[in-house]
Structure formats: C-alpha cells, structure tokens
C-alpha cells in the first residue's frame, strides 16, 4: 500500500470537513432530554422531527424565508439586468472606461464595507428606507454588482466577436445581432450569474443587520441569529433545524452548478 499515507490524509480531511455538518444534523434530530445528557451522543437514540416543527413556532421562519426570497429575487434580477449591458461594453470596447470599471471591481473587493455602509445607512435613513426591504434590495444590488459585472464580462468575452461581425455583414443592426447571436450563447452565463447574485443576497448578513432592526422585516440570516437568544441561551434543537432549512436553497444552487464546476475542473485536466 504505497498510497496508504495519502488515504490517511484524505480521511483526515473528510473528518474535518464533515464532522460539524454531522453534528448539526445530529443536533437537529435530538430530543431536549437527549440534549441534556452529560455525554453527547453522535447518533440520536430517538430521532425526532419535532425540532423542525418547533423552529417555526419559535421564530417567524416562514415570513423570514418569504422576505429573503423576495429580496434575493429582486436584487439578483435587478443586478443582472443592469450589469448585462455594462458587461457587454466592458468586454467589447477597450479603453479608459473599461480600465476604470475593472479597477473599480478590484477596489470594491479591497475596501472594507464599513466605509460604505455608514454613509449608505445615513442616505437610506434620509430616504426613509431603513427598516424596509426595498432599502435592503438597493444595498444588495450594489454589493453583488461588481462580481456580477466581472462574471458576465468574462462570459461575453468567450463569445467570439467574429459571430457579431458576420451578423453585421449580413445586415443585422448591432441590437439585432446582440439579441439573436450573442444572447443565446450568453444564456448559461446569465443563469449562473443570476444564481450567484441570488445566493449572495440570500446569505447576506452584515448589511441586513444594519438596515433591518425591526424583527417584522428581518431576513432569514437575521432570524436565525435570533434563535440564539439575547444572552446566548438557546434551544439548540430548533436552532439546528432552522439552520439546516436555511441551507436548502444554497445546496440546490450548488447541486445545479456542481456539474459546471466539475466540467470546468475536468477541462483543466484534459488540457494539462
């Protein structure tokens, strides 16, 4: 067994990666009595789904999920609609604007968001948008925009300009050629960007924490944190159950792009 040490290392990684997940699952399925035992058990003795039901009773999970869904849908759609033409311009026209756009994408990664969120909070307050979902949508759009731009301009670049030139030779106007030649080829990229923006907004915590202070408008991540209670006292079962439920959309997202991720890695392998 020449590869024995490698398998040991791989097993160590699997344990490190999996054990908090298994613990989350185990906690979600336990009864309060079992949770109170001095020695924690890995596998629940009497697995129960009661925590999932209790979670809905303790916090307004359904409302929070609906609000998160609304904010994420609105933010991701707006992000993609406004960044698509700009990404096209970034990919197709070289020059100063393109450089500035790329520079801004980079800067937006480096600058601490606290520097933006304080003035943004003040602006939103003056517009009476604090504690409102449209306020959060505005913030999420600005926060997903740089990366969406970056992703989309990459996808546009992958469409050969010759295709458009050929369409132009055939007498198509620029808009026409974009609609009938570029758009279909861009569709998978647009979907990926849309999903990315959706998940970013669905998961986002810091801006929501600042913008939404009223429990009636809180999104899912904020509501989850409320499970830990004001002094850190928590009913762990419902907390774990709610956490698992909040992860479902992200898991679906990854199941969808997993193939893309894999094929990307495989393409790399073939090239190598």
């Amino acid at each position: 067994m020449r590869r024995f040490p490698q398998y040991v290392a791989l097993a160590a990684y699997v344990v490190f990666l999996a054990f908090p997940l298994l613990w989350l699952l185990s906690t979600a399925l336990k009864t309060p009595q079992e949770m109170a035992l001095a020695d924690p058990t890995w596998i629940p003795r009497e697995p129960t789904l009661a925590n999932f039901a209790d979670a809905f009773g303790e916090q307004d999970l359904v409302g929070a999920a609906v609000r998160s869904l609304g904010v994420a849908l609105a933010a991701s759609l707006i992000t993609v609609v406004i960044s698509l033409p700009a990404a096209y311009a970034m990919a197709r026209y070289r020059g100063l604007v393109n450089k500035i756009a790329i520079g801004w994408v980079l800067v937006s990664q480096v600058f601490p968001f606290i520097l933006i969120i304080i003035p943004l909070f003040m602006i939103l307050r003056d517009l009476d948008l604090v504690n409102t979902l449209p306020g959060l949508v505005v913030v999420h759009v600005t926060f997903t925009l740089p990366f969406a731009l970056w992703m989309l301009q990459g996808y546009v670049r992958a469409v050969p300009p010759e295709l458009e030139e050929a369409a132009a030779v055939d007498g198509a106007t620029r808009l026409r050629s974009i609609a009938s030649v570029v758009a279909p080829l861009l569709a998978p990229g647009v979907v990926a960007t849309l999903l990315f923006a959706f998940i970013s907004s669905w998961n986002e915590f810091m801006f929501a924490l600042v913008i939404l202070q009223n429990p009636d408008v809180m999104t899912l991540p904020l509501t989850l944190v409320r499970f830990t209670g004001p002094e850190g006292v928590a009913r762990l079962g419902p907390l774990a159950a709610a956490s698992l439920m909040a992860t479902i959309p992200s898991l679906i997202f990854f199941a969808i792009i997993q193939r893309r991720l894999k094929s990307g890695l495989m393409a790399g392998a073939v090239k190598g």
Partner: protein
Amino acid sequence: MTATATRPAPPRRPHARPRRISRQTREMWLLMLPALVPVLLFSVGPLLYGIGLAFTDARNTRNHETSFTGLENLFDLLSAEDFWSSFRIGMIWAVSVTVLQFLAALGLALLLNENLRFRGVARVLAVVPWAMPPVVIGLMWKLVYHPDAGILNGLLGTHVNWLADFSLALPAIIVVGVWTGMPQTTVVLLAGLQGIPRELYEAGEVDGASRWRRFWNITLPQLRPVIVAITSLDFVWNINQFGLVYVLTQGGPGGQTRLPMLFAYEEAFRYRFAGYASMLGLAMAIVVLAVLGLYLWRQLRETR
C-alpha cells in the same frame, strides 16, 4: 529586420476615424449607464462620502451638526488602546487564517489531484462549506463548541467553554475561518494544479527527481501566480470578515475576538460615532493596501 517597421502606414481616410470612435464611445456610455447610475449613487458616492466622514465629528444620528475636524479621528484612533488590541487581533486572525487555509487547501488540492479512490466524495464534501450561509456556519460551530452539548467537549471529555475562554476563543474562531475559506482556495489551487503541463513531471521523472523535488521544483514555481492571487484575496477577505465572527462570539470574551470590522460596527451603530468608525475603516483600507502592495511587489520581484 526593420522592413516591417519602416513600411509606410496605410493611407487613412481623414474624417472617418474620429467620427466612428465618437459613435462607439456614445454607444459604450449608453450601455454602461444602467449600471453606472446605481454604482455612482450607492457605491462610489457613499465610499467618497465615507472617506470624507472620516475627517469629521459626524454622529450617526438624525440632525446632528457635523464639523470638519481634520485628523483628530486618526489621532484618537492611534491613541486608543481598544483600537490597537483590535488591530492586533485582526492581524493575527487574518494572517493565520490565510496561511493555515492555504496550507490545508494545498494539501487537499494535491490529494484531490491524485488518482485516489473516494476522491469524488471528498470533492463534493470539499465544496460544502462554500454552499452554506455564513450565519449557518457560525451557528453550526457554536453547536460544536457548545460547553455542555457540544461534540468537541464530548470527544475530548472536557468541559471547556471554548468561545468564552480568554485564550482559546481566538484559536477557536481561526479554526472556523479555515474551515469556511478552505473550499474556495482548494478549488482555485486544484484548477492551477491541473493547468501544469504533464511533460514537466515526466521530464522530472526521467531525470530521477524524487517526489519531493518534483513538488519543490515544478509544482510550486508553476503554481506561484495562482498562489499569489488567492492568498492576497484571502487576506483581504479575512481582514474584512464580520458576519461569521459576529455570530460566533460578537467579539467576546472581553474583546478577545473583536476584529477591526466588529470594532467599527460597534462604534458606528451602537455608540453612533460615524466619523470615528469611518476613520477606522479608512485606516484599515490603507493598511490592507500597504500589506498587499508590499506582498505583491516582493512576489513580483522574486519571480523576475
């Protein structure tokens, strides 16, 4: 040799070119407009405003008279013990998470690049932390570290309150940071590994280079650009981390895990010192740019 360079330029139509450029420019601006307006209004604008706030005594309350105070916030910041302790914690956190995350991810990427059995399972598992909301990751690890019902104490047979212990809280959240950031780094490094031409290894094998030598003399140098890019990005993300640690400890115990962004958040939204908190953000941005610049410059010079 110079034949192509000295060949006369093709004759230009005198008026056609400038006109075409201006039409293109107009088109480009039109396409940029839908994104440009919100970016200027809600991103660039606030950023500049935030930088401006750093030099005022602005309070984060309605109808507060704000006046320009120059560098006063900076002097206050530099003489505040709280800031220095938060800065130190932030640096320890960002550097150790970045380094450990890189080493762990490199190991995992090397393993996943090998033809091992169960590689598929490990691959799927390796991206799971990526697919989880950061808040859920924080809550999940809170359950692992829980003093009574947590599995860590269960496994070790201890009764430690990990996240509330003065000396253990920072190492405990560093582990969570590594767990959280590993997938992205692994995927990037794996892609980099798969881009290394196989012939290099074959040549190395022919020359009788050991496994270790091949790693040291082929893999690492070939991977260098990828390593530089991902570690600098990881450092930036880690130093700006907020949500994960907010959920885990809220900066406690006694400020032992109060990363700079948590400090700034408290100053801005609990104590309402908007100007002071903005200066904190600005100072951190400058430090990050300096550290990053130095690192990138050194890496660039060593490559040449």
